[in-house]
């Protein structure tokens, strides 16, 4: 028990000091994010190729996305990145209450994003725009337009899955922060959580113009 309490205030035994430990965890998280860049990169590449091959069908299909909801979600997600960045700052300064509040704010905004996304998905379901046997599209090239929705659901679906995982992680961090686990000498996990959250934000920064805005 005493060992555990001490561990919260000093670096793990394999590191020289706390700064090296923080650098190592930041580096490790970025290596993971690199695999994520390549993962989403493959989806972006596939989308670019199919969009270039079927420009008219993709344009027609993209007109069925709600620009206002997409724009609203962009604002919500960027705001959640701000609260996440402020949460990391509060952790660096050892402000426990502020840290908890900013994390709760981030979780709240992330939840708003997911709820709006769920309404968008439901709307597509009602309109028979989910790819599959029930897909119906009133356009010149319905099969090619269906490809747009395959990419739309694959890309925003993978993004939403990342958001759900991020929201779950935030709940864990809120509980730990409330218990006073993080302070000015130990905030590495919050910093790494922030890196993940901002990365998911960046993916949306590209998804929004590519899916909603190019018409």
């Amino acid at each position, binding site marked *: 028990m005493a060992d555990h309490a001490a561990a919260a205030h000093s670096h793990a035994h394999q590191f020289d000091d706390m700064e090296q430990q*923080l*650098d190592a965890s930041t580096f490790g998280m970025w290596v993971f994010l*690199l695999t994520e*860049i*390549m993962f989403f*990169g493959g989806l972006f590449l596939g989308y670019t190729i199919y969009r270039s091959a079927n420009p008219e069908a993709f344009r027609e299909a993209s007109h069925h996305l709600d620009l206002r909801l997409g724009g609203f979600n962009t604002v919500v997600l960027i705001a959640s990145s*701000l609260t996440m*960045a402020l949460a990391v700052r509060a952790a660096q300064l050892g402000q426990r209450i502020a840290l908890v509040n900013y994390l709760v704010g981030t979780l709240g905004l992330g939840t708003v994003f997911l709820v709006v996304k769920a309404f968008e998905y439901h709307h597509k379901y009602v309109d028979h725009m989910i790819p599959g046997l029930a897909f119906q599209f009133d356009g010149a090239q319905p099969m090619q337009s269906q490809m747009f929705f395959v990419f739309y659901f694959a890309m925003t679906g993978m993004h939403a899955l990342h958001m759900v995982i991020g929201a779950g992680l935030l709940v864990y961090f809120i509980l730990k922060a409330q218990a006073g686990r993080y302070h000015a000498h130990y905030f590495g996990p919050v910093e790494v959580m*922030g890196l993940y959250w901002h990365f998911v934000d960046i993916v949306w920064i590209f998804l929004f*113009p590519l899916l909603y805005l190019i018409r």
Partner: protein
Amino acid sequence: MTHHVEPKKMYFAIFAALMILTTVTVAVAEIDLGPMNVVVALVVACTKATLVVLFFMHVRHSSPLTRLTVAAGFVWLVLLLGLTLSDYVSRGWLPQPKGW
């Protein structure tokens, strides 16, 4: 410990810049610029992503190793997109855009 704590003002300034860029990209999408619409949308998105990486993700003050890792990620992404698309384009597998 020698970590860098940024002033709150900096985070709000970056947030404001991101909001302005979002407004710009939505406004430009309403105007028909032909193929330039895609270019503007991607330039704005890249600018926003760079702001988030440098300021929100603290890469500005990260160790050289971390900065190298971040740069490697984007170089590899450019290779993935660039080499594949150059193959498609040079083989004539994609239709020519209008006006070419």
